[in-house]
C-alpha cells in the first residue's frame, strides 16, 4: 500500500477529544457490572485454597438446598469439560486436581450476590494437598512436581493472536524437563570463539516478577440464552470475535449461535483477550435459564487473573576494548503459571538483534508452575527483555568508558538488518528516538544534576533506555457508508479502550474527503460488525485504520462513479470538496453528497447505495520505538527513589490524533515505572499470593509521580495508514532499564531485579545481596 496524503479537510493530525468524553465524565457510560436486566442472577465461584491438590470429594448439598440458590455446578455437571485442557479457558472448573491458588472448583448462581457468597461457603471440598512447583528454576529440575497432565500440548495461540513475531525460523528442540512446555533456540555464528576473543565478558542475571495488568475494571460478563439455544454475552473484552470463538470452542456450539456485545472495557492491557470467566457464566445461565452476571473481585483478579509472566534472563556478552560487539549468549525463562501460553520469540529478537551481535545464541524456555496462568501485558515480555539488554549495554559502556548513547547508536540495528529469526528489520525510528532523547536538556545536564547530590539532598542520577515493539498484525475489516444527508457511518467491531475510534474516524474523514464532524463511527457486536481483530498488539490504528482508510477510499470511488454518471462527466474531471462533487473548473455543475446519499435510498431509484468495504490482511510490521529518560534522587538511608522528571520520546510514524497519542505515551510510561519501582505479585513457598489487595500490590498514584513529558517523533511507516505506527505498547518498555541505569548513575550500585524497591536499593547500598522474590 502506498502512503496517502491528507486531503484538505479536518481529519488526520488534529488533536480532537474523543466523542464519548461527556458520557464518561458523567458516569453514564455502561460497563458490564452496570447492567441489570430483569431476572438477573449473580454468580460466585468457589476457588482452590491450594496451589496443588487432588480433589477427593465435593459436597454441594447444603449449597443447593439454600433458598435463593438457582444453580450449583461442579466439573461433574459439565459434560463439555475435557482433561488435558489445552488452554486456561478450557479448564472451566477443576476436574480432579487443582493447579493454582484461586482455580475455580465450583460455581453458584443465586438471586443475590450475598446468597451466592454464602452458598459458596457451604460447599465442602476434601483436598489431598500435593507438593507444588513454585519457583520456575526449581520447577525445571528433574523430579519437580508436575503441573500439566502428561500429554498436554503447548498453547502458542497467544503468539499467533498477538502477531508479535514469526517464529518459523526458530530452531526449537523438543521439551525435555517435566515442566518445560515450550523451548526455542536462535543462534548465529560461533559464540564460544567470540567469547575467547573478547576483552571484556559481562554476565548478569535479570529478574522481573509476575505483575498484574492492573486494569481498574475487574473481569466481568453477563450471559443469557434464549429459548432457541442462542447465547448472548455482554463482555468486557479486547476482542469480541476472539471471545466468541473461544466460548464456542469451550462449549462446543457453533459461532453463529453466540452474539458477543462488547460493553465499555474498563482497561485490558492484554489481560482481557482470553476468555476467563465467560464460559462458566454462560454455563450457569444455561443451567438456570436466567441472565447471570459475574464480576470478579479485586482479590480474585490478583490471585487468579492472568498476569504477566515472571521473566528471568541470564545474559552474557563479550566485547572488544574499543566497544566492538563480539558475542552474546542468553537464557530466558518465562514462568507461565499453570497453563502454557507465553510468547517466547519476542525476547530472543530484542536480546540478540536490537543491537548488532555478530555471534549469538539465545535459548528460551516456557516453564509451568503452580501459579495462575499468564497472559499478555502491553508489549508482552519486552519491558523485561529490555531491562536485561539495555541495563547490560549501559554497564558495558560504563566499563569501557564510552558515551552510553553513542555506544548504543553505534550498534543499533537499522532497516534491513537481520532480526534474530532471520527476517529483516522493517523501517523504524530507533535511531531518531535515541538522538532526540540525547538532545534533551536533562540528559545534557546530567553531570550537573549528579553534582547537586548531598547537602541534605539524596543521591541524584539520570538514566535513559531505548526499547520498542515490533507491532502486531491481524486480518480485519470495516465498512463506510454514505448516508442520505451526506454524512458518513463507519462500522467496525473494534473495542475502543484507548480512544482509537476517534482516530479511525479521522482516517475516514481524510481518506474520503469530509470534515471529521460529518463522520460517526460505531463499534458493532459480533452479529452486526464485520470481522475485526483484537484491540491489542499496538495494531488498531495500523490494521483497523488501514481497513477504514481503504473502505473510505472505496466509498469515495463509488461516490465519484455515481457523480460522474449523474453529471455526465469523467471521474478524473471531478473534485470532492465542502460536501459537494463538482466538475473541475465548472463550480456550478455539481451534486452534493446528500443528493448522492438520498438517491441511494430512494424508492424506485436506479442509483445504488454507497457502501465502502475493505477486508485487508497484513504481512508487514511497523516497529515502534520509544526512549525514556529519568532524572531521579535516591534516599541513601531508606533506598527510596523519587522520580523528579520523566521524559518519553516515541516514534509514532504519524500522530493521527496527538491527544490520544500523548495519552498512550503518558499512561504507558507510568505502567512502565510501576514495573520499575513498586509492582510485584509476591508468592510464599506454598504458592499463595502474599499481596492480594491494591493496598499491598502497589500501583503508582498521582502523588508518586512528576508530570510525564512527551515528545512525538514522526518517521512515517511505509505501510501504515497515513504513515502511522503502533503507539500503545512501546511506552511501557523502557522504564525498568532507565530507572536501573539512573540508580547506578546516582549510587554506583547496579540492581538487576525489578522492582527497584527501597529495600532492594538500601540493601545493595549496604553491600548486601539484593532480596529475591519468588
Amino acid at each position, binding site marked *: 500500500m502506498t502512503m496517502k496524503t491528507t486531503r484538505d479537510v479536518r481529519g488526520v493530525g488534529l*488533536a480532537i*477529544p*474523543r466523542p*464519548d*468524553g*461527556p*458520557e*464518561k*465524565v*458523567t*458516569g*453514564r*457510560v*455502561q*460497563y458490564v*457490572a*452496570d447492567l*441489570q436486566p430483569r431476572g438477573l442472577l449473580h454468580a460466585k465461584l468457589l476457588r482452590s485454597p491450594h496451589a496443588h491438590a487432588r480433589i477427593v470429594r465435593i459436597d454441594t448439598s447444603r449449597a443447593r438446598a439454600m433458598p435463593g440458590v438457582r444453580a450449583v455446578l461442579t466439573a461433574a455437571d459439565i459434560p463439555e469439560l475435557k482433561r488435558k485442557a489445552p488452554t486456561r479457558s478450557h479448564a472451566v472448573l477443576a476436574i480432579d486436581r487443582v493447579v493454582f491458588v484461586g482455580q475455580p472448583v465450583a460455581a453458584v448462581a443465586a438471586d*443475590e450476590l*450475598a446468597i451466592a457468597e454464602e452458598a459458596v461457603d457451604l460447599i465442602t471440598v476434601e483436598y489431598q494437598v500435593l507438593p507444588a512447583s513454585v519457583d520456575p528454576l526449581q520447577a525445571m529440575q528433574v523430579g519437580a512436581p508436575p503441573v500439566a497432565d502428561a500429554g498436554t500440548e503447548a498453547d502458542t495461540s497467544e503468539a499467533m493472536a498477538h502477531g508479535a513475531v514469526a517464529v518459523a525460523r526458530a530452531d526449537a528442540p523438543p521439551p525435555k524437563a517435566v515442566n518445560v512446555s515450550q523451548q526455542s533456540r536462535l543462534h548465529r555464528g560461533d559464540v564460544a570463539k567470540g567469547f575467547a576473543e573478547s576483552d571484556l565478558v559481562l554476565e548478569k542475571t535479570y529478574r522481573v516478577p509476575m505483575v498484574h*495488568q*492492573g*486494569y*481498574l*475494571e*475487574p473481569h466481568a460478563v453477563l450471559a443469557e440464552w434464549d429459548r432457541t439455544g442462542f447465547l448472548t454475552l455482554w463482555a468486557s473484552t479486547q476482542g469480541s470475535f476472539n471471545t466468541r470463538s473461544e466460548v464456542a470452542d469451550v462449549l462446543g456450539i457453533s459461532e453463529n449461535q453466540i452474539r458477543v456485545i462488547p460493553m*465499555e*472495557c*474498563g*482497561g*485490558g*492491557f492484554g489481560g482481557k483477550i482470553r476468555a476467563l470467566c465467560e464460559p462458566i457464566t454462560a454455563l450457569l445461565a444455561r443451567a438456570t435459564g436466567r441472565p447471570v452476571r459475574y*464480576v470478579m*473481585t*479485586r482479590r480474585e483478579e490478583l490471585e487468579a487473573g492472568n498476569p504477566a509472566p515472571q521473566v528471568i534472563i541470564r545474559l552474557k556478552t563479550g566485547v572488544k576494548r574499543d566497544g566492538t560487539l563480539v558475542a552474546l549468549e542468553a537464557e530466558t525463562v518465562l514462568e507461565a503459571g499453570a497453563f502454557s501460553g507465553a510468547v517466547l520469540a519476542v525476547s530472543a529478537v530484542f536480546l540478540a538483534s536490537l543491537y548488532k551481535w555478530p555471534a549469538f545464541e539465545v535459548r528460551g524456555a516456557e516453564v509451568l508452575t503452580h501459579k495462575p496462568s499468564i497472559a499478555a501485558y502491553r508489549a508482552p515480555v519486552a519491558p523485561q527483555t529490555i531491562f536485561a539488554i539495555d541495563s547490560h549495554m549501559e554497564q558495558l559502556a560504563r566499563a569501557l568508558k564510552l558515551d552510553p548513547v553513542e555506544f548504543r547508536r553505534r550498534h543499533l540495528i537499522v532497516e534491513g538488518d537481520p532480526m534474530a529469526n532471520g527476517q529483516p528489520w522493517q523501517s523504524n525510528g530507533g535511531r531518531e528516538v535515541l538522538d532526540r532523547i540525547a538532545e534533551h536538556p536533562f540528559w545534557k545536564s546530567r553531570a550537573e544534576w549528579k553534582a547537586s547530590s548531598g547537602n541534605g539532598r539524596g543521591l541524584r542520577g539520570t538514566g535513559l533506555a531505548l526499547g520498542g515493539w515490533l507491532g502486531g498484525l491481524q486480518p480485519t475489516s470495516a465498512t463506510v457508508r454514505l448516508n442520505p444527508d451526506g454524512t458518513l457511518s463507519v462500522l467496525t467491531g473494534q473495542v475502543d*479502550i*484507548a*480512544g482509537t475510534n476517534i482516530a479511525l474516524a479521522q482516517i475516514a474523514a481524510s481518506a474520503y474527503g469530509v470534515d471529521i464532524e460529518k463522520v460517526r463511527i460505531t463499534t458493532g457486536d459480533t452479529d452486526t460488525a464485520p470481522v475485526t481483530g483484537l484491540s491489542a498488539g499496538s495494531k488498531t490504528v495500523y490494521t483497523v485504520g488501514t481497513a477504514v482508510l481503504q473502505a473510505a477510499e472505496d466509498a469515495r470511488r463509488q461516490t465519484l462513479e455515481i457523480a460522474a454518471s449523474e453529471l455526465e462527466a469523467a471521474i478524473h474531471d471531478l473534485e470532492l470538496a465542502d460536501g459537494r462533487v463538482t466538475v473541475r473548473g465548472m463550480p456550478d455543475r455539481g451534486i452534493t453528497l446528500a443528493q448522492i446519499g438520498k438517491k441511494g435510498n430512494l424508492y424506485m431509484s436506479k442509483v445504488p447505495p454507497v457502501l465502502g468495504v475493505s477486508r485487508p490482511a497484513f504481512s508487514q510490521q511497523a516497529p515502534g520505538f520509544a526512549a525514556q529518560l529519568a532524572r531521579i534522587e535516591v534516599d541513601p538511608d531508606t533506598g527510596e527513589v523519587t522520580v523528579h522528571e520523566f521524559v518519553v520520546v516515541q516514534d509514532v510514524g504519524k500522530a493521527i490524533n496527538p*491527544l*490520544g497519542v*500523548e*495519552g498512550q505515551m*503518558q*499512561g*504507558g*510510561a*507510568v*505502567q512502565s515505572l510501576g514495573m520499575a519501582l513498586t509492582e510485584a505479585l509476591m508468592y510464599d513457598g506454598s504458592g499463595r499470593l502474599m499481596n492480594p*489487595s*491494591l*493496598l499491598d500490590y502497589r*500501583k503508582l*498514584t*498521582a*502523588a*508518586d*509521580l512528576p*508530570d*510525564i513529558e512527551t515528545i512525538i517523533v514522526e518517521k512515517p511507516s511505509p505501510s501504515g495508514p497515513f504513515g502511522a505506527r503502533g503507539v500503545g505498547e512501546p511506552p511501557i518498555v523502557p522504564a525498568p532499564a532507565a530507572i536501573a541505569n539512573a540508580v547506578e548513575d546516582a549510587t554506583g550500585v547496579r540492581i538487576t531485579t525489578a522492582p527497584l524497591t527501597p529495600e532492594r536499593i538500601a540493601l545493595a547500598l549496604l553491600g548486601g545481596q539484593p532480596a529475591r522474590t519468588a
Partner: protein
Amino acid sequence: MAKHALSFTVNDEAVEVLVQPWDTLLDALRERLGLTGPKEGCGTGDCGGCTVHLDGKPVASCLMLAVQARGRAVRTIEGLGRPGALHPLQEAFVRHGVPQCGFCIPGVLMSAAALLAENPRPTDEEIRYGIAGNLCRCTGYTTMISAISEAAAAAAR
C-alpha cells in the same frame, strides 16, 4: 433477614429505598437506585473508584454501610453535572482528553470536586495529593492534573 427502609438525600432529591443490613452505600446506589456512575474497582477502599460526597466530604462508598447514610446528603457523579450541562471539571476533563477506559473517572472527578470545594486554588502538588487516593491505570495522571488546575483557574476568574 428483613430489609431496612433507608431515607436519605441523593443528588438533591429525597429518596427512600429498601436495603439489606449488609449492603454498602455503593451497593445501595448501584444496585438499588441504579446510580451506576460510582464504580467498584476493589471493594476495600484502595482504588477510589467508588468515591462520592457525603455531606460534602469525599468518602469511599464501598467502605460504608448503606444504613449509615440515613438522613444524610449524598452526591454521586450523576449529580455533579450532566451531558449538555457539564461541571467545569468535567468540561476540562473532556477538553484535555483525560478519559481513556473511563472506569476511574467518576471517582477522580468526585475527589477533585471535593478538593476544589476546600481549596479553590490548589497547587499542582496539592492536586496530586488530592487525587492520590484514586488509582488510574490508563492516563499516567498528567492530563488530570492539568485539567483540574485549569478548571480551578477558570473558576477563580
